[in-house]
């Protein structure tokens, strides 16, 4: 046991992270046993990752909010109103200006959505930061306001169909990058992992700082690379249904061999979006002044302000980031359903907050990680889709998820107390 502790200490692994991965494995294996092997299959893991994407993107932003001792109860409603705006823009407005199915429709719609999300975030952030209204109240108000606004955009009418390019962000049959590009993605990711590890080590050595043992760096980088390979291999093991494959082959003029086509899904586009958001947000949180100030404000707001940090402006900016991420999630969520309905994102605020908290954000502020929130989102979604797969009815699902949330935070509390952190 002590030997294992030494190994983990040498690798500088966050034991809390190990606990979460352990919990995730228990959930996965448990559901797999219960469903006679239907949980850990390429098909289910593909769906699981696509379903997690929207909450995962918002959870990255919620980390910053919770770290600075705020909360955002409005994210589900903001997602709803932004999805409606993007839906109307691409289905009603842009076809009249650019023409139906114009190649720029998706990006114009997305940018407008991001603008609306940022503006909503700015409004709420300024109210919290400069006017001093508690974030709980501002975003509780926002929860009602933006959900109502989502209805007003079209007087309750669901917008469909969406632009076909826009729909790729939802990760349907066409919304994946195929087997070859998935391996290219894996190769780039592994190069980034190895490059990052080598650069960090060289940099510490150049300052004569102590470095981790070489074997520990290799094992850590190796595990991360293996995870990337395993994920890509799984996504590539999930074939596109025969009829859809036939359609794609016809569109691309591919020859259809005897015995049907075997085209793999590959990595879904929403997962690429999550990866990009997660990397960007991790860099923002750990490598920039902005991120440093977020954590300083969470640890000691008075010290932050005495250090000359403009706490009010920072608060507004953090809510702007949250609004932008809500818009990206709105794109993923509406693209996945191929329509924009005014109830899109209902209850997402609770899923997002739960993901961040299960992922290790402390509501007392100052503590939280992006990767933790992503894992938290995956844990939540695994529970939910696993229970749906077993056929547990929705009311019992809610009860179980509620209990798991409280238990997770309690265990985390015990862990932190034992380790003298908080």
């Amino acid at each position, binding site marked *: 046991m002590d030997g294992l502790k030494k190994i983990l200490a040498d690798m500088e692994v966050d034991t809390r992270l190990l606990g979460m991965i352990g919990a995730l494995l228990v959930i996965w294996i448990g559901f797999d046993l219960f469903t006679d092997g239907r949980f850990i299959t390429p098909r289910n893991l593909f769906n699981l990752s696509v379903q997690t994407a929207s909450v995962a993107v918002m959870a990255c932003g919620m980390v910053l909010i919770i770290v600075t001792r705020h909360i955002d109860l409005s994210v589900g409603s903001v997602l709803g109103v932004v999805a409606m705006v993007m839906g109307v823009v691409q289905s009603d407005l842009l076809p009249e200006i650019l023409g139906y199915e114009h190649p720029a429709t998706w990006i114009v719609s997305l940018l407008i959505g991001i603008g609306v999300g940022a503006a909503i975030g700015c409004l709420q952030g300024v109210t919290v930061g400069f006017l001093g209204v508690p974030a709980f109240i501002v975003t509780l108000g926002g929860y009602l306001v933006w959900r109502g606004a989502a209805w007003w955009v079209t007087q309750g009418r669901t917008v469909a169909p969406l632009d076909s390019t826009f729909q790729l962000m939802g990760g349907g049959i066409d919304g994946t990058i195929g087997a070859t590009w998935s391996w290219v993605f894996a190769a780039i990711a592994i190069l980034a992992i190895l490059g990052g590890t080598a650069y960090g080590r060289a940099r510490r050595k150049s300052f004569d700082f102590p470095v981790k043992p070489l074997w520990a760096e290799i094992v850590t980088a190796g595990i991360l690379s293996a995870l990337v390979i395993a994920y890509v291999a799984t996504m590539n093991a999930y074939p596109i249904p025969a009829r859809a494959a036939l359609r794609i082959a016809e569109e691309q003029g591919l020859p259809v061999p005897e015995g049907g086509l075997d085209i793999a899904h590959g990595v879904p586009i929403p997962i690429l979006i999550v990866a990009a958001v997660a990397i960007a947000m991790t860099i923002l949180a750990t490598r920039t002044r902005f991120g440093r100030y977020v*954590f300083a404000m969470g640890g000691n707001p008075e*010290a932050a302000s005495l250090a000359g940090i403009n706490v009010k402006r920072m608060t507004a900016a953090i809510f702007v980031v949250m609004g932008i991420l809500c818009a990206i999630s709105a794109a993923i969520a509406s693209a996945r359903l191929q329509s924009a309905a005014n109830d899109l994102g209902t209850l997402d605020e609770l899923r997002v907050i739960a993901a961040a908290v299960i992922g290790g954000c402390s509501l007392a502020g*100052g503590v939280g990680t992006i990767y933790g929130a992503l894992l938290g989102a995956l844990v939540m979604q695994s529970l939910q889709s696993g229970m749906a797969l077993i056929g547990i009815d929705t009311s019992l699902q809610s009860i179980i998820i509620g209990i798991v949330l409280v238990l997770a935070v309690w265990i985390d509390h015990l862990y932190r107390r034992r380790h003298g952190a908080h």
Partner: protein
Amino acid sequence: MNAPTPLVEMRNMSISFGGVKAVDDVSIDLYPGEVVGLLGHNGAGKSTLIKMLSGAYPPDSGEIFINGEKAAIADPHDAKEYNIETIYQTLALADNLDAAANLFLGREIRTPLGFLDDSAMEAATREVMHRLNPNFKKFHAPVKALSGGQRQSVAIARAIHFNAKILIMDEPTAALGVQETAQVAELVQQLKSEGIGIFLISHDLHDVFDLSDRLTVLKNGKLVGTVATQDVTHDDVLGMIILGKMPGDSADAA
């Protein structure tokens, strides 16, 4: 010993909070290589006066001169531009961050691409901490995991690293043991010899007497007076603090 121009001159400073005059028309000055002790009861206005110098509170009225020139200090950044560094009573450390992050908070070193250069900041922190507290090893622990003395040395390191010319120490020894208090006293002597001017706020009359060249006493937000430490006794100073009377005045001056 006094140079012709004071390092700091605060003239007729006033500030009110919710109708209460926390500091009322107070003027003080500080010369290079000098320690001025600020004394007074809780709520006498010492910390508030000094926070106007460090940029934490914008004054209602009054003027600040640095090296004889009028200074505009609206926020903590401005104060740091004038090389005014403050060691707060609360230390003003973000407990969840490590020593280097705290030392450089608000003044981070960045790479050419604009990202935090944590290695460079850690190197600088190791260097300054080696001077102050050679036993300090916990460079990667959040400062909440440090002892009182270690936390104090992080706060002091922050002031020293950025070449303070004017140093404000608010109750620097309040949380410290005997040995650590002696270390702070030694540090004050060393900084003085480097020509740094120090405002020392303390409850502890012994500390202040040992370290200060002059003493300024406040009572109820008003200036009682400033005296040279060598000219007064403990009892004189107690009289200033408690009764608000200058040494030699008649008893009912307050």
